[in-house]
């Protein structure tokens, strides 16, 4: 086989596999979007007539609104919690050396190696025992704590990657110029890590927003959007769910696009700062 045909075959396989993967990843998402516009009661293909009927039905019965509110609240608080704690932990991982560092690393990373359902179950057992002692029942607070445990390893890794490419001579320069520790952190360290922190926050928000397993275990009687949809489709696939699904995709998509725009902007700004300082 000569080199021309060999690289042509390789190109077909490689480009083909990426294209096939993208189709594969978007099959269920696009299926839901398509079915959200059906006019029929039955979710079967081909779709005969298109209409906004099920969006109308969705806004008429509004059963999903409490779940939507809970999801938004849980996602907002968990994002804040896991981004701040993950960033602090990443700094300790990457920049400090201290006694029991290994233990700290193991404990903060291990949840990533746990299937979510098991994490949820294990925490549910603990919260139930605690609840018996202290007289509370699982609810949104336990969901938020559970999301924190699940998401912190992700935010930690994302921020740690940003720290890995970090240039610490700028910090030395600021210290030499007489800045205090807090000033160095606020004026130099944080701005340089900002792109990683924002990516981590976006990841955290979406992981919490779309989380099923942990919310399912820990939410008690409260419902978030994923558990609301799960209890709905478990009894039979009502045609309002594709419409609800499509509506939840929109904020997630906007967030991802906005975050990418921000990341590029910040990367450019950091390059410019470094460039002007070199001159």
């Amino acid at each position, binding site marked *: *086989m000569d080199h021309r045909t*060999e*690289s042509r075959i390789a190109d077909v396989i490689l*480009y083909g*596999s*990426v294209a096939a*993967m993208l189709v*594969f*990843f978007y*099959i*269920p*998402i696009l*299926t839901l979007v*398509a*079915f959200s516009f059906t006019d029929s009661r039955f*979710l*079967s*293909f081909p779709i005969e007539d298109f209409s906004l009927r099920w969006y109308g039905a969705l806004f008429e019965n509004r059963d999903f609104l409490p779940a939507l509110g809970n999801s938004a609240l849980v996602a907002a608080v968990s994002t804040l919690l896991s981004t*701040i704690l*993950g960033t*602090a*932990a990443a700094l300790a991982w*990457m920049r*400090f*050396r*201290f006694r029991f560092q290994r233990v700290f690393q193991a404990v*903060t990373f291990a*949840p990533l*190696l*746990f*299937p*979510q*359902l*098991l994490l949820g*179950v*294990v*925490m549910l057992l*603990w919260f139930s025992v605690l609840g018996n002692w202290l007289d509370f029942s699982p609810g949104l607070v336990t969901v938020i704590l*559970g999301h*924190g*445990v699940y998401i912190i390893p992700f935010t*930690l890794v994302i921020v740690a990657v940003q*720290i890995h490419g970090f240039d*610490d001579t700028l910090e030395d320069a600021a210290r030499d110029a007489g800045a205090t520790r807090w000033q160095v952190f606020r004026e130099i360290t944080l701005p340089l890590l900002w792109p990683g922190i924002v990516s981590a926050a976006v*990841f955290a928000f*979406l*992981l919490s927003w*779309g989380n099923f*397993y942990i919310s399912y275990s820990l939410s008690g009687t409260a419902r978030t959007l*994923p558990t609301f*949809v*799960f209890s709905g*489709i478990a009894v039979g*696939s009502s045609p309002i*769910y594709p419409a609800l*699904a499509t509506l939840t995709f929109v904020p*997630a*998509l906007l967030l*991802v*696009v906005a975050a990418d725009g921000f990341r590029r902007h910040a990367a450019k700004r950091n390059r410019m700062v470094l460039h002007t300082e070199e001159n």
Partner: protein
Amino acid sequence: MKRLRKSWRDPALILAVAPAGLLMTAFFVVPLVMTALLSFQGTKYYRLVWTWNLDVWSDVFSQAHYWTIMGRTVWMSGLCVALCVILGLPIAYAMATRLKSLENHITILIVFAFLTDAVLKTFGWVLFLDRTGVFNGMLTLVGFPPGATDLLFGPGATMIGMVYNLLPYTIFTIYLSMVRIDRDLILAAYDAGASKTRTFFEVTLPLARPGIYAGAILVFVLSLGVFLEPKVMGGGTSPMAAELIRQSFETRVNWPLGAALTLVVIGIGMVSLGLAALVVRNRLQGQDLQGQGGQV
């Protein structure tokens, strides 16, 4: 970058370590210990009683039914790992070598799909694979009889769902180890007259091993606990370990049993992690020796 040696008396260290450390201890480590303790208790009339005996464990080890399901779970997870690695390799390689300009966009597309609500994605698959769903509808359009495939509610559909949810892990770990490969090594192989295929299998693939191993381990341990796919897509006909655990908590309200089964799954995961670590260490040491031999 230098690492600063910090004493535990330094407030900066406490500030960085304490919040995450305490949260993980209180809501991850302690619950694990609690789960272990609970597996030695009993239940009476759907209530937990603190008995301290091995009844639950002897029940777990004497019931063949549990081990059939555990065996199926390990087999499905192994198959899922194999598929995720085989499918992830060409994709990661293409992203690392061919699609530099589009790489960012592709990453965002993968991340968005990965982070979308798993319940909704699973439901989307149901609508796609259903007898009257999109896939069969498309097959009818090109001339197949209606309802040509009947994938939904079987182990095949479960596997599609598992690969769907876990493939991003192998793509990213393999990709990360492939972009780190020194381009000169590949060019050297070409100079020495190796074909592209041969270079891929003899240079790129061995150097990408850390990413392959990491991805495989992640996919394996995570697939031990899948619940939505066998339940919603597999139709509950061939339950996996997570379903067993859910039943013992919710249907049978037997917490000690649920705790013991949870520990069995965690145990399977840890044993395979340990074995994988051993194999990887041996392999990588072998590689180092070979590399040194080459230099001498």
